[in-house]
């Protein structure tokens, strides 16, 4: 009886694991840089100059604009794919949601500008649509994808330039609460231990002061600096525009 129950629980746990891993978003490419050219339409020099330009823009404003080309949408419409990709990559800084994704799907002849919450006021749906219609699509229709993407990036950067200043590099606020709690907890533990020890060896308390200082290291984990490029934690609610050519 107990054995059968155990088997059932194990089966259930296995099912749960399966259901958690099954609908994984593995059809999204990895965020390898500011230009993710998985459909391979950009020559290396264009890719490099674009990436440099985007990096300079982020350094000046903290806005994260990423250009992505993908070979296929996996049967979804470009709007929901772009939103899913944007949220998976978490473009834009967490406190501003100031990311933009320029997504090009050459095989389906579709393009979309997906705008993070924080830039919806600067890069409105109407403006995104105008950039696609006037800057990107004419060049795409001539078959010149790199030129269309460069023109689109230039127009987007012009629209969002000056909207934000760089995020404050001092990340103390990230781990301040943890340090605070850890210090308090450490203080109480210290008090209890000291009491105990005092009861046993009246002069033995000093050796135990160490844990309080040790709690500081705890907090550092929240303040990791990025090694490569990654999203800043921003999100998007579906703003922007799409186009076909």
């Amino acid at each position, binding site marked *: 009886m107990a054995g059968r129950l155990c088997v059932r629980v194990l089966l259930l746990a296995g099912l749960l694991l399966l259901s958690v891993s099954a609908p994984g978003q593995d059809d999204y490419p990895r965020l390898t840089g500011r230009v993710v050219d998985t459909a391979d339409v950009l020559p290396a020099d264009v890719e490099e100059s674009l990436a440099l330009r985007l990096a300079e823009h982020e350094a000046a404003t903290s806005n994260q604009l990423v250009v992505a080309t993908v070979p296929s949408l996996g049967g979804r419409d470009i709007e*929901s794919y772009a*939103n899913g990709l944007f949220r998976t990559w978490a473009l834009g800084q967490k406190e501003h949601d100031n990311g933009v994704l320029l997504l090009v799907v050459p095989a389906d002849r579709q393009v979309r500008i997906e705008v993070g919450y924080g830039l919806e006021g600067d890069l409105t749906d109407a403006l*995104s*649509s105008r950039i696609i*219609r006037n800057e990107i699509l004419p060049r795409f229709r001539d078959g010149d994808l790199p030129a269309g993407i460069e023109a689109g990036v230039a127009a987007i950067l012009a629209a969002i330039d000056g909207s934000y200043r760089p995020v404050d590099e001092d990340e103390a606020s990230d781990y301040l609460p943890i340090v605070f709690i850890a210090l308090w907890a450490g203080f*109480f533990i210290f*008090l209890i231990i000291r009491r105990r020890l005092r009861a046993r060896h009246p002069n033995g308390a000093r050796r135990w002061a160490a844990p309080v200082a040790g709690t500081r290291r705890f907090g550092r984990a929240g303040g990791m600096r990025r090694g490569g490029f990654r999203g800043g934690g921003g999100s998007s*609610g579906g703003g*922007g525009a*799409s186009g076909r050519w």
Partner: protein
Amino acid sequence: MPASASARYLSAVRVTAALTLVLLFLTGCGINAIPTLEERANAAWSEVLNQYQRRTDLVPNLVEVVKGFAAQEREVLTQVTEARSRVAQMQIPPDITSNPEAFRRFQENQQALGGALSRLIATVEAYPDLRSSENFLTLQAQLEGTENRIAVARRDYIEAVRAYNTELRTIPGRWWAAIFYPDAQPMQNFAIEEEAQAAPQVRF
């Protein structure tokens, strides 16, 4: 005397430590999960309302611009205007997310407006001058963007409500609800099939 004072002090420290531990334990067991998830679902619902409102606000301008080029399409224009006024006049009770009747009515009215709008956009196909006017293109971009935001907001709401309802119905949450949150009620959700029907294609 000093011995008893220090004993009292010690017991105060112990009580505080024990209380802290109990609090941490309860938090770890999810005593806060229900209110947290409820707030998240409420926020997602506000976003849904917000985006629908945005669409409602766009309609008069759109109707105006289309009238300028295609006044003879009276039937579809009237349909849009009527559907919009039904949406605008709709009373939204505060308990709408736990009131199936009000929730269904809200859905129906919004769907009627969505349907009328996509018919209007389809009608416009026949008017090349209108389709290429900058005014119309701008409004069309705004409408598309809004429809897309509505779709995203609905998806987020579905997910938030799913998490909240699951918490209410599954074990630790069910006990917490019975003891501490007796008024917590499952929220209404959009069905997935409706989801597929409700997103009108406003594209050419």
